[in-house]
């Protein structure tokens, strides 16, 4: 066996780091500039939100679960309600299904655009970052117009949704997504063809389909490794009425992750258009639920960052025994470590960013 002449050192990365908006710590084993091993460490901001099910009744708990994460707030609220609805075995009205699908796609657009902007900023392309975030403001304005709030919308309720959207607001949304699509098509060429973007993203952070499957990668991270895993295929809410195919790439690198998320922004715009066109005329928003939940349920949804698993165990009182959120970042941390091994230390920031980490979600 050939002896290595490279100098080995262990470098702590995080929890506070300019590239990391949230705290995660990695112990990196380096051989010169090459990362040969990595040990992840989380747990800096554990809030114990799941423990609150013992003190908040199942209706109030929706407002707590929304606060697991600011960016995926709507989907968390929706996932919580869907889980309790499954325990109650109730079906929500059709209009509520379409509104949930439409709002969750708006949530996906602003989440992916946030990530695309951060990515551009991370590889030093500031004007691209400004362009993407400028467009992101428009979708956040639409979220505010429809729900009354930009991030924590509180429009879900066990049994349906609390707010309706009139035709005028749908028309404004339709016009705005046309504008966002136009803006994004303008920057698409830069993301996909610009030399500096390609030189920073292509060929780094490879995660093969076999590794992605074995290590449990989910969301755009898995789809960028050629795995067509998208929980929207399960037909939740209005998805059975929508034309939709998961977007995948076989390149398996950071560039592929950028490609998948970018194309998903355009795909979400298309889904919103379909929702607007097929919005049911019946304005019933809620199926009333009576009594307290009894039983248990698992629900899986496709968050912007990937598969999220909700588990509820109810005992017939107004307090649940357990509510568990398994967030996509929790699943993606182990495969992330695999993509880091063998890469250059200088690329670490981009590699960590490439899974769109949300530590706030992970720690709950």
């Amino acid at each position, binding site marked *: 066996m050939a002896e290595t002449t490279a100098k080995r050192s262990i470098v702590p990365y995080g929890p506070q780091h300019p590239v990391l908006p949230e705290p995660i710590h990695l112990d990196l084993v380096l051989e010169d500039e090459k990362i040969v091993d990595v*040990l992840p*460490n*989380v*747990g*800096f901001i*554990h809030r*114990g939100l799941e*423990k609150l099910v013992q003190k908040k009744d199942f209706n109030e708990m929706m407002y707590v679960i929304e606060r697991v994460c600011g960016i995926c707030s709507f989907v968390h609220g929706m996932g919580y309600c869907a889980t309790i609805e499954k325990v109650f075995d109730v079906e929500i009205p059709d209009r509520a299904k379409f509104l949930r699908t439409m709002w969750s796609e708006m949530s996906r657009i602003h989440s992916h655009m946030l990530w695309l902007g951060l990515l551009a900023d991370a590889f030093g392309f500031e004007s691209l970052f400004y362009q993407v975030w400028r467009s992101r403001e428009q979708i956040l304005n639409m979220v505010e117009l429809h729900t009354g709030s930009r991030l924590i919308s509180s429009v879900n309720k066990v049994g349906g949704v609390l707010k309706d959207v009139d035709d005028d607001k749908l028309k404004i949304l339709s016009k705005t997504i046309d504008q966002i699509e136009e803006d994004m098509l303008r920057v698409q060429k830069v993301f996909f063809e610009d030399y500096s973007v390609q030189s920073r993203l292509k060929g780094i952070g490879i995660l093969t389909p076999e590794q992605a*499957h*074995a*290590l*449990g990668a989910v969301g755009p991270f898995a789809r960028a490794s050629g*795995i*067509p*895993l998208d*929980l*929207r*295929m*399960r*037909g939740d809410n209005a*998805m*059975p*009425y*929508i*034309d*939709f*195919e998961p977007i995948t790439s076989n390149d398996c690198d950071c560039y592929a992750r950028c490609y998948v998320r970018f194309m998903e922004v355009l795909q979400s715009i298309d889904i919103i258009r379909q929702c607007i066109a097929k919005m049911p005329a019946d304005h019933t928003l809620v199926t009333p639920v009576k009594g307290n939940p009894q039983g248990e349920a*698992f629900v*899986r949804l496709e968050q912007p960052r990937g*598969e999220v*698993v909700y*588990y509820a*165990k109810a*005992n017939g009182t107004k307090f649940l*025994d*357990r509510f*568990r959120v*398994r967030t996509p970042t*929790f*699943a993606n*941390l*182990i*495969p992330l470590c695999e993509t880091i091994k063998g890469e250059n230390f200088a690329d670490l920031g981009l590699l960590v960013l490439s899974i769109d980490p949300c530590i706030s979600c992970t*720690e709950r």
Partner: protein
Amino acid sequence: MTEVFCPENILEEIKADQIPEKAMAKIAEGYRFSQACAATVDNHLELSYSFAHDETYQFYTFRILPEDGEEIPSITRICPPATFYENEMRELFGANITLIALDLQDKMYRIEEVQPFAPEKKEGE
């Protein structure tokens, strides 16, 4: 229209020492480890290990009801992604999971309270 894959979730109750072989069988069938979590129900632990099939969208859960203090063998050598889940179940719920590949020694979450979700101990324990 989207072709919908929505099979019913399956739940199978097993004994604690069966989990490694059951996990191995699911992986061999093409499943991916999806999640593991614990719950305290009627002052007893319930552990759930779930596996997902990415082509059929089937979700299969193994349920373990361990006796007080019963050892539960880790599946991290079969399913490396189970690392954080098993550390979490042990740290927060007191599940006696042994031989975790990356053992964080109950320091995954930096919290003062010891096993905040665990069943209450009976007198004399």
